[in-house]
């Protein structure tokens, strides 16, 4: 996935990757990544947990504006289901 992101970014389109394995991202170095150490097959969260899914979408899209250095891996530290997720109030960015 990081390799695909690098190709697209090199074509001039900003990318952000949600990643579950920091070790691989540190090697492949996608341009921007949000690291969530969650179960495989669940990059945006649990089925039916809309607030959790939107929180991941929000932080990933925000990274498109805030990351200033290529290869940055953001780590929000969210602990899977042991967090209170709230739907973002606003999506105004940029």
């Amino acid at each position, binding site marked *: *996935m990081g390799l695909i992101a690098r190709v697209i970014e090199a074509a001039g389109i900003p990318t952000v990757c*949600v990643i579950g394995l920091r070790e691989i991202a540190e090697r492949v170095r996608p341009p921007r990544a949000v690291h969530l150490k969650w179960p495989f097959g669940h990059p945006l969260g649990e089925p*039916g947990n809309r607030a959790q899914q939107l929180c991941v979408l929000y932080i990933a899209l925000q990274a498109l504006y805030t990351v200033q250095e290529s290869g940055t891996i953001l780590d929000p530290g969210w602990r899977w289901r042991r967090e209170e997720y709230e739907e973002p109030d606003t*999506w105004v960015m940029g």
Partner: protein
Amino acid sequence: MSDYDRLRQRMGRAVGQLFSQLPELARVWGQLFDAIEGAPVPLARLAKPLHQCRLAFITTGGVHLRSQPPFDMNDSRGDPSYRAIPADTPAEALTITHDYYDHSDAERDLNILFPLELGRELAARGAIGGLGTCYSFMGHIEPPHVTTLLQQTAPAVAVQLRQEQIDAVLLTPA
């Protein structure tokens, strides 16, 4: 398929399942990408506010339309091809072919892997400028298919994204 290929296929599945528990395996897999280590990482700037941005989603979770050919799970080195998925595709029209992870939850709620529905909702309420054609690959690509991915299929998707005037891309793994 030879016995060797069958063994590699079984090992590939087992490695996929163990990655989350054994970081050492993930590190070993990462070593496959030594070739790109040291290459500069590009960074394109997003100049528009989000509400004007046309987004596309890309997953490596093996999602495809039921009417499209499935990804090739018989090649233990992976399948570097991709499937284009229109933004208005309903979840019922999609399926997942990927033997290396448990996708039963994603089949119940595709938003956890490939959030077309949430993307359409964000576009409808004006939070984003729109959702363009989305794309799916499968992960676990090994040489020599990495070369195909880097030189053919990923650049082909990049060209289509530019043609569709996509401003930014979100990528999600399996």
